[in-house]
């Protein structure tokens, strides 16, 4: 598998090789890798990328998934447009 050709985060265009390089540089928790590479900061908010990256990180470092600082889930459940918070119920 060519890690330069595997996309692990589609929202922010991050490659598997980016993740492997971050781990090599010493970043060993998901919260820090998130802020380094922007994985989990796009519109999926980590639904797609973080489980994949967690597995890569666990496999590479030998750490358990619960030792990886898996990022908190925050609202909203799905991206939502601001107009729904300002509408009077008739628009949008």
């Amino acid at each position, binding site marked *: 598998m060519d890690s330069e050709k595997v996309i692990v985060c589609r929202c922010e265009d991050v490659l598997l090789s980016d993740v492997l390089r971050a781990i090599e540089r010493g970043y060993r928790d998901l*919260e820090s890798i998130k802020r*380094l590479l922007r994985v989990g900061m796009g519109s999926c908010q980590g639904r797609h990328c973080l489980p994949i990256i967690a597995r890569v990180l666990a496999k590479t470092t030998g750490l358990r998934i619960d030792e990886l600082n898996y990022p908190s889930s925050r609202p909203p459940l799905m991206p939502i447009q*601001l*107009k729904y*918070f300002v509408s009077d119920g008739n628009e949008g």
Partner: protein
Amino acid sequence: MIIGGGSVGLMISYYLLKKGVKSIVIERKYPGSGNTYKCATGIRASFTSKEHIALMKRSIELWSELRDELGVFYERSGYLWLLSREEDLRTFKTYVSFQNELGIPTKIIDLSEVKCLAPTIVIKDLLAAVYDPLAGKASPFDLILQSWRLLVEKGCKVLAGVEAKKILLSKKGILGVETSAGFIESSTVVLATAYDTVKLLEPLNISVPIEPVPKHAFITEAYRDLFKPLIIDWTTSSYIVQTPHGNFLVGSEIPERPSDKLLNRLEFLRKASKVWTKYFPWMKEAYLLRYWTGYYDMTPDHHPIIGPLDDLEGLYIAAGFSGHGFMMSPSVGEVIADWIAEGRPRVPEALNLSMSRFKKGKLIKEIAVFG
């Protein structure tokens, strides 16, 4: 030894290293996890006390250096305060002349200039604005991740997932700190622990006047560059800033009591959306990605507690930043490093910010604390 691996803790370690002192930083979760990663990213010296202004003038010099030394994103893209009431304009005229006297280039600008700075803004309810071209913004992610890496490369220790349990005293001063990973010996301990400073010093019968006040922020999807300055709507205590990636980070004040639990509140989303879609109607279409909460660690005079403790040799505090810790972290790091290595801070105004001011009743008054 430094307790707390946020921007303040890591900058103390960074400036100690510049003086040839290698330190250990312990961090309960991961570096940046307390307040730094949740912050609004703004950087300004336009305050209303000489202490804040002196520390922030130095910080702004250091932010430029950090951009070069560590590759931290930092830009002097300005702050813009939107004013819509006559009385606020009068108040701000006083602030501006105070700031100008101390070398901060704030100025009152008219609405056509506001339009130049933020072309898509609707100005119909506005009276005027205040612009600070020396202010700007930086990336908390870069600051933490890059300084952390450099410190480790140069032989300092940054221990993540290690929690301070108890400060142990000797007859003369400090013996060290009992942590979740065992005892760490150190005769010098710095608390860069925001509200947790209160809990760590309680067993030593030292009461620290810091209260945590809940704050709210959300971020939208990324857009192309639409405006550079961090914008504050003074009437509603709200702010908006476009991140280097293009997302809009938004905050707005809603009623909260100190020590209240961090809860997500629909009231916040309604208010913040209402304020900013009024100024930027296109923002109604923007998708909100994430909503988070955090604390301002507030002191009675909204100024930080910085420096050694009078009655306990070797113990230093850098906490209670009242919403300004990230922007101040470089100069506070330098000042604490000065104190430890040379016995006094290079910014003399920092001497007014020690814990003893609460005993002596020499509180500092700050009028402008935002969102």
